[in-house]
């Protein structure tokens, strides 16, 4: 079966066509401008991964929030579990860019890290 994908790994957004066999394995992949696209489609077919960005509440900071991201993508199906964890978190100021705020989040092997500095308020 021919399946169409849009690679999300860079702004080019290549349209990638994959011929997927009855065993669910891709037989032929075409349309990617770089090898990352092929790897992306293989991953999409078996277990899609996404990175997410959000913010964590800061206590005693110059700002109420500190923006965060994950250090590596997680299974798509776990996004809302991750959001619940991020919502529940509170961190004391100061926060430094790159600081690990939640280590090994949900046991998925990725950390939630700060993407900005937040000084004390």
């Amino acid at each position, binding site marked *: 079966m021919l399946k169409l994908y849009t690679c999300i790994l860079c702004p080019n957004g290549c349209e990638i066509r994959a011929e997927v066999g009855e065993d669910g394995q891709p037989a032929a992949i075409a349309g990617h401008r770089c090898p990352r696209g092929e790897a992306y489609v293989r991953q999409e077919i078996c277990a899609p991964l996404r*990175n997410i960005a959000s913010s964590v509440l800061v206590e005693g900071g110059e700002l109420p929030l500190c923006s965060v991201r994950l250090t590596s993508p997680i299974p798509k199906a776990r996004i809302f579990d991750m959001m619940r964890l991020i919502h529940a978190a509170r961190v004391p100021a100061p926060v430094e860019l790159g600081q690990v705020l939640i280590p090994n989040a949900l046991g998925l092997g990725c950390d939630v890290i700060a993407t900005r500095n937040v000084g004390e308020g």
Partner: protein
Amino acid sequence: MTQTDKDVIIIGGGPAGLAAAVKLHELGVRDILILEREHALGGILRQCIHDGFGLTRFSQTLTGPEYAQRFIDAAAEQGIAYMLDTTVLRMSAAHAVTAASRKGLHRFNARAIILAMGCRERTRGALSIPGARPTGIYTAGVAQSYINLQNTMVGKNAVILGSGDIGMIMARRLTLEGARVSAVFELQPYPSGLPRNVEQCLYDYDIPLYLRHTVTNILGDARLQAVEVSEVGEDLRPLPGTQRLYPCDTLILSVGLIPENELALDAGVLLDAHTGGAVVDESYQTTVPGIFAAGNVLHVHDLVDFVSLEAERMAEAVKRYLAGEQAKPAIAVSAGRDVAYALPQHISGARDALLTFRPRRPLRDATLRVLQDGQAILTKRFPRMLPAQMEQALLPAAALKSHNPVEVVIGDA
């Protein structure tokens, strides 16, 4: 009122202003000052907390604040001077700049001025949607600032008008924050943002995108209660009898950005009706000598990487200007068939020029042609072109045949 002389005044401390400052410093131009209206450097990127920036400039995917911080750190390391909470009020063709801060008015005389004021969002007023005027209607950037900077949720049940990148990114952000986004409506027959955002911001969260649709009425007294949506025809006008009601408490507008150019007009800088930004040459110099522009104030960019790169190229030209190079705009560049706009609008012919353009509609197997004296002096193929995606092509000075005007055209297969 204080009065200060500077080599270069940079208006705006966003990615364009910062990249220009850092590059100028590297090139040995040290007497520079950034004037920034907000309480922090970084511009609009401070609120763009999602990732996807930096692949072109840093070969690494970063979030907006991380990307901005790299330039803020570089500027701090070089000791580049800046003033925050300082708004430029006026600028003259003779390079006098007047700014206001809480300390009062400041007057600067600069040898060169860099415009890096970014852009602002088109609002409901610019669209003239009929109906009531309840609360709950936000532009995408304002909603982004509320949620990401001020920790204020804008609503529970949203509809988005316009498929610009910021609107789609806000659709995902609202969904992650627990709101319901029932649909995105786009007037044009194609999305106005990047395909990757349609995929990862809408389809990942089962948010439907309706092309050829627009909001035709707004209902609600104090708070928004519903929007009426209609299909549009070939002429983009609503088709009678296609109205449907979408209950919602929030309407997010992502319907375009306009370069912030009131100051430029003050100084007599000529603007391009298609970009909304200044008319420039290949050195990013406007029609007023010594006034330069880069970033969103020049034309709306979808990717900050290209903003930084443009500002860095401009900084090199500013350095040449300070060293005495005179601009001799000689060759007019115009946007022809299927080209929405092309920059620069005129070139000297003495240097290679990086052409930046957007197609008017989505095209496959498209060929860019630069024509002069009826001949193609540059040809470049593109497998796909989208209005959402800015494209570039280098026009070598050696390719020019004469000083006659040049036309940029696109043809498809």
